[in-house]
């Protein structure tokens, strides 16, 4: 494996690694997942190519063909894993382990050579290294800024209101989720046959918070009656903000 100069060790440890860790942690990526890139997209094709032409150079073309052949091999293996229902992490892990073991048994030095191709010492001046670092940092910042803005962004401010039947025919779950982007107070009123069968006042929810309540109401079997729930927002009783309904009295066919 080629030795990295002190300049590049400093550069890698102070800029590249922190950036990779920041991206990984910020986007929820486990760092180890980046290492699987070469396992999936390079190793299978590399082994096949080395088997077909052991004396060939490991150059850029080799890298490209190794990528393409890795994809082709994995697709082929997918068809082999399908009949036994093994298209799952364990199935793939078994394949990659078998592949690595086979390659190791055939040519123990392959991984040393493989590793030497992964880490290449680039030649650059301090000025260029700084410029490249700044460029990398800018791209990372652009991605993080954009990711956070998009994750938080909502074109609409809204409240979800629902009422679903449970297992028993007269038991209902009523729920609210606040996506108004600000703390909001709600009131819920449930009626059946003109009578109030449930009322919940002063339900204060922070943005993103959910409230649910299970309630039951009297019913006669085979006598279908409608339960209607109204939602009011911020003590405004002049208009119903949301409304939902469900018929009870028949055997429940939905819900979880």
């Amino acid at each position, binding site marked *: 494996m080629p030795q990295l100069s002190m300049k590049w060790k400093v550069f890698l440890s102070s800029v590249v690694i922190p950036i990779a860790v920041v991206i990984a942690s910020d986007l929820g*990526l*486990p760092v*180890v*997942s980046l290492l*699987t*890139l070469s*396992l*999936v*997209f390079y190793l299978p094709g590399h082994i096949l190519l080395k088997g*077909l*032409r052991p004396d*060939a150079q490991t150059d*850029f073309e080799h*890298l*490209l063909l190794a*990528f*393409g*052949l890795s*994809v082709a091999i994995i*697709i*082929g293996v*997918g*068809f082999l894993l*399908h009949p036994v*229902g093994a*298209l*799952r*992490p364990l199935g*793939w892990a078994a394949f*990659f382990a078998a592949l690595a073991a086979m390659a190791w048994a055939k040519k123990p030095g392959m991984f040393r050579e493989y590793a030497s191709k992964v880490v290449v010492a680039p030649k650059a001046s301090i000025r260029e290294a700084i*410029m*490249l670092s700044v460029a990398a940092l*800018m791209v990372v910042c*652009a*991605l993080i*800024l*954009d*990711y956070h*803005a*998009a994750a938080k962004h*909502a074109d*609409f401010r*809204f*409240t*979800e*209101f*629902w*009422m*679903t039947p449970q297992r028993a025919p007269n038991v209902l779950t009523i*729920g609210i989720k606040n996506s108004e982007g600000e703390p909001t107070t709600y009131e819920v009123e449930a009626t059946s046959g003109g009578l109030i069968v449930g009322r919940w006042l002063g339900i204060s929810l922070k943005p993103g918070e959910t409230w649910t309540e299970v309630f039951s109401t009297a019913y006669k079997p085979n006598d*279908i009656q409608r339960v209607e729930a109204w939602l009011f927002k911020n003590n405004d009783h002049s208009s119903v*903000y*949301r409304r*939902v*309904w469900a*018929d009870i009295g028949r055997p429940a*066919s*939905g*819900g*979880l």
Partner: protein
Amino acid sequence: MSLTAPGVLVRRAQSRLMTLGWRAIRLASMLLGLDETSLPKDNPLPAQNRSWIAELSLAAATGLMLIALAQIAGMHYLPDIAYKMYWVGIILILFPISFCLALPDASRNERLLLVIMMGLAFYAIKILHSPVRFTGYDEFLHWVTALNMMEQHRLFGPNSLLEVGPHYPGLEILTNAFSGVSGLSIFTSGLIIIGLGKAALLGALFLIAETITRSSRVAGIACVVIMASSTFNSFETQYAYASLALVLTMLALLAAVRVSQGGPHILSYTVAAALLAVAVTVTHHLTSYFLAAMLAALAALELARGQRQEGRLHLVWLAGIAVAADVLWSRFAGSTGAYLTPVLLEGVKDFWALITSSGVTRTPLEDADGVRKPLWENVTSMGSTMLVCLGLAAGFLRSLNLAGGRIIFKSKLRFRVEWRTSALVLLTLLTLGFPLSILLRLTPFGWELGYRMISYVFFGICIVVAVAIAGLWQKPRPIVIASILTVMVLGGFATGSGPNFINYPYKVAADSQSIELLGVQAAEWTRTWLGRGNIFAADRINQLLLAVYGRQEPLTGLKDEAKITELVFARALGDEERKALSRGWVDYVMIDLRLTTALPRYGVYFEAGEDEAVHARPPDPPALLKFNDIKGVDRPFDNGAIIIYDLRSLHAAKL
């Protein structure tokens, strides 16, 4: 004297005319590339020591930062600022790198690194547009197949949104493997797969172009010209089977070019090309047909070349394997005829109507809802197309000349055609598809066919146009070349995506511009509270969200005569719709009241082929809310814009 003077004048005039004619012939010869001196050659001088990569990285990073800010400005309802920052960002990535690639003394490796850097920077624009989830329509179709595979651990799980999709599962298998081993989500895995594919495609194109033109300068320019394709930075960046298949196709062509060259590793290249061709077969139907045709044509050209060459037989085998794989897979997976034939037939019909002036033509550069693009975008799009046409005019014969193409006359009527590089001849002939694709794009239904053709035709266009540019400007004119490339690629962006690549606020039936939190949360709610696998009638966008986030079964067309459009938009239910409901074909209907605010941006509210009458004006809200008044229909969910009705009580009921 008086008698000779006119004779002298005539002779002088003849001589001048001959000189002018000779100059015109030389000029035409130079422009068309018939002259050996007008063929592109790499600079014999050693490459400069100075590398521009650091500076160009900084410029590209600044461009990406501007585009990120443009996306944020777009989200915050600042469209003018967003629009300007977006285009300036693209120019910052594009112009400096094109300038460096145009320099005759840039090193080969620097060119290679720069084109990959540019390709990845352009791919990053797609990530900046959708950093949280896939938003492209086609991406959702494949997301569903990938989710099915992840959950069922098997292939071929049905996908009602794209029935043919599960039979071409290459992309989803790869996603399953990478996601399974790395622990990343399907979304992140998909982004990485397509990103790596972009780099591989450009790398393979560079090597092919470098090999067949013997010029790294042409190769570098060809890699920029391919980005002028209207699909390169839009359609081909999507998480979709065609995106991966195009990458594998380019790699297979690289291996096939090496086979045609012969050499000690011919067998390994043949095996590699064959494996890649089979992988393309199970990844994407159209691309696999294209690859099989290309390999067959390459083998035919090598055979017709008439010179004994060791790669000929290997190429014949290769073409045979690709064709056999396509035929066998079509038999196993079921014919793609039902899926592809209507598009082809409609395209051909429209094309015929266009050339006989008997049909309706599509207004170019205008969306389905009549929204026109800004003038400068239209001018750039047309400028790009014009430059490609000029490039083809100047590059077609030049490329054939570069390929060693010669017509040798044995007598007045007998002649023989010779060439050295079959791959370059093939890619040059492929460009003849460009005018056809342009004409098809002027028709309403042929548009899609023409749009898809572009991806394949540009395999040849990029090399021919690059040969023209490098041949015409052999002396350093980097500003001229960079300007031409910039206009070409900007035009490609404008035609392919344009402002849709900025996150503007919600629009009705506008694919990526309609995917937002309110719909996503509603779909997620259905999975949590109604369970999976319910049959939902919903509009085009909510179908996608229900399938992915809700894991529901969206209905893509009621059986028999009943239509979803009628079910949702009619003021009262028709007989067919009542029958469909009583037969239990629909469990729930999801009504999105936002549909009442505008016409569909991409032409349909529900699915292709819906009645044109519904596009006269947006639907009335009371028509959508008719389920409020149908006895027995529950209303379990309401978020102000989306209402869900439970229709299960109507199963087997007499309405």
